[in-house]
């Protein structure tokens, strides 16, 4: 098995350390960076995505594969030329004020990064003002918000109002999700999109930016 195939298998297996080692080995052996990305990493994630959709791989395995890919990309990124770095879009994401739940949000981050989005993670307990400040600073395409409690989801409404007040609501698309969040609620607070799970979040994000 050549290095590219071995790397592909390591990512599929979720062998994080093995994948990083094989990436380094591939680079040392002189493999083309774009070939590593396309033939090893992206094909691995495509395969993982298919297997997951069929129910043959579970979420923990998918997350580990995504993590393996992330770690490999860390090695490769510095070697990419300006013109070679592509991003599907930039996303600022966080769990709203007074809410510390982050597993769902972190899963969304991994799925979006796997799909090629650039993510800025504000963490948990993020106040409306923090979303606004970051939006003014980096001008993202999407602001994504998560909440797990019926009592904290009002943070989403507050953030949208704060963006409005700052005059930048129209410069960004708002995507929301989390257990007490519904399509109705999204309509009510005039968010742009709602996603019931991490997989849909990627699809909705792509729709928001005009490519699906």
């Amino acid at each position, binding site marked *: 098995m050549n290095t590219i195939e071995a790397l592909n298998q390591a990512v599929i297996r979720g062998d994080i350390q093995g994948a990083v080692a094989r990436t380094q080995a591939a680079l040392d052996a002189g493999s083309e960076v774009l070939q590593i990305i396309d033939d090893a990493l992206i094909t691995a994630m495509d395969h993982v995505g298919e297997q997951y959709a069929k*129910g043959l791989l*579970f*979420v*923990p395995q998918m997350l580990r594969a995504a993590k393996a890919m992330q770690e490999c990309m860390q090695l490769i990124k510095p070697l990419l030329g300006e013109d070679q770095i592509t991003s599907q879009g930039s996303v600022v994401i966080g769990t709203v004020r007074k809410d*510390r739940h982050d*597993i*769902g949000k972190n*899963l969304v981050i991994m799925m979006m990064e796997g799909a090629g989005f650039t993510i800025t993670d504000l963490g948990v307990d993020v106040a409306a003002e923090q979303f606004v400040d970051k939006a003014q600073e980096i001008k993202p395409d999407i602001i994504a918000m998560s909440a797990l409690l*019926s*009592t904290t989801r009002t943070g989403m409404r507050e953030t949208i109002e704060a963006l409005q007040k700052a005059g930048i609501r129209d410069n960004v698309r708002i995507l929301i999700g989390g*257990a*007490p969040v519904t399509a109705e609620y999204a309509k009510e607070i005039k968010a742009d999109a709602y996603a019931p*799970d*991490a997989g849909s979040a990627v699809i909705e994000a792509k729709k928001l930016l005009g490519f699906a």
Partner: protein
Amino acid sequence: MLRKIKMGKTPIRCNFLNTEAVLEINRNGRWILEHIGVRIQESVLIDKLKAAGARVDRESQIVKFPPALLDDILAQAPTRFVLYSRDGKNDIHLDTGKVYFANGGRVFRILDMTTGSWRPTKLKDIARTATLVNHLDHIHVYIIACHAHDLELQYYHLNDFYHAFNHTTKHVMSGCENLCGVKQMWKLAGFIAGGKDNIRKRPWVSVITNPISPLTFDSDTLQVLDFCATNGIPVTCAPAPIAGTTSPVTLAGTLSQMHAEALAGVALAQLCAPGAKVLYGAVPSTMDLRNLEFAMGSVEMAMMNAVAVQLAKLYQLSIYASGGVTEAKGPDIQAGCEKSFSNLLVAMNGADLIHLAAGMLDSGNSIAYEQFVIDDEIIGMIERIIGGITVNRATLASDVIKKVFPDGNFVMEEHTVEHMMAEYFYPNLSVRCNYDVWEQRSRPSMLSRAKEQVDWILKENDQGLLEPELILDIKSAFPGIQNL
């Protein structure tokens, strides 16, 4: 020869998991508290813990409990206390071997079965669910069932508790967002009871708090816990680890972590006020790792809650356990199976109080009025099962068998009339009739009967329960009260 038989009722109580395994989990929970510790996000409490002899790291806020210290603190927890009802007719006697059931709280959506669609919950739903629980024999405690989206935030807990108190005389439990909220509630409860001493002596309201798994106790939670412990309000600090996500994927691992979190909760309450009335809390559940879907109706959830009882009993603590949740979105087959498995398993293991046992749908995110009535019946069946079989001279019935044999039957015997009420649970909803009669009656089902029951209960009981004069006094003393 007829022997003298003195046996009576034999309630069914099981030990789901063998003792050796339970002891191993206990050892592991204690090891976690000693070597991993818990995170305490309130510096005043960290000071108290340090003074008591815990190992404390102020920067990380991590506190570790040496085993001797843990046992000393836990020894102060009362093993037996009562959750009172306002009228004294539904007092909850913890630690007496009796199994009690409560509904569950803080959903945000309700399935309206007249329209077939879901809507956000309102203050009216608190009043109606309290009314239902007040009326249903097998639900013993009312937990404020839902979030009231139409309540102003400023006096939120003043109001949700007020409307609960006005529609049930059973013991009321709920969570409070923060210290301000629990103070609002306690002030109101004291007013209704005719003084703080009265309510403190016979508390007919209690509070639910929760740590954040893994092993973290945040500031709001600790402030509420402290207030309750100090003011004599019965309280629980109930861990809700979700196996595979906020606790290990293995059931023994989740149980170990949950046990550490639950014991820490009890210990923290004792540190705030020695002798504080606190229940060992347990809300362990699972995640379906195929798609990271929450699974509170899983059989593994049922099993873990059953074992939680055994863990609590090692310390002679009364337990606030969980059962009766389903992922089903409505009262259907899945709801029936999942609720029955968990409520039965946890009841058979002897939990003092099983909450979430009634009304819950959609992983604890929704309720339906009809589900309360259906679950009341499921619980009735479970109560009968755990009530066991009475074996004594009279029930062995050899005299009446001798009398009836060889040509008679038992239907009209005095023995039959004498025992038929105590020996059986008579369901209201389960359909028992032959096919033709069933057709004639327009094909009833448990659900259609549940709908009729709901209509009847709500129609006949739409008045508040507090005295009109008291209500006027309350409204003038508490201008933040919102009407229905």
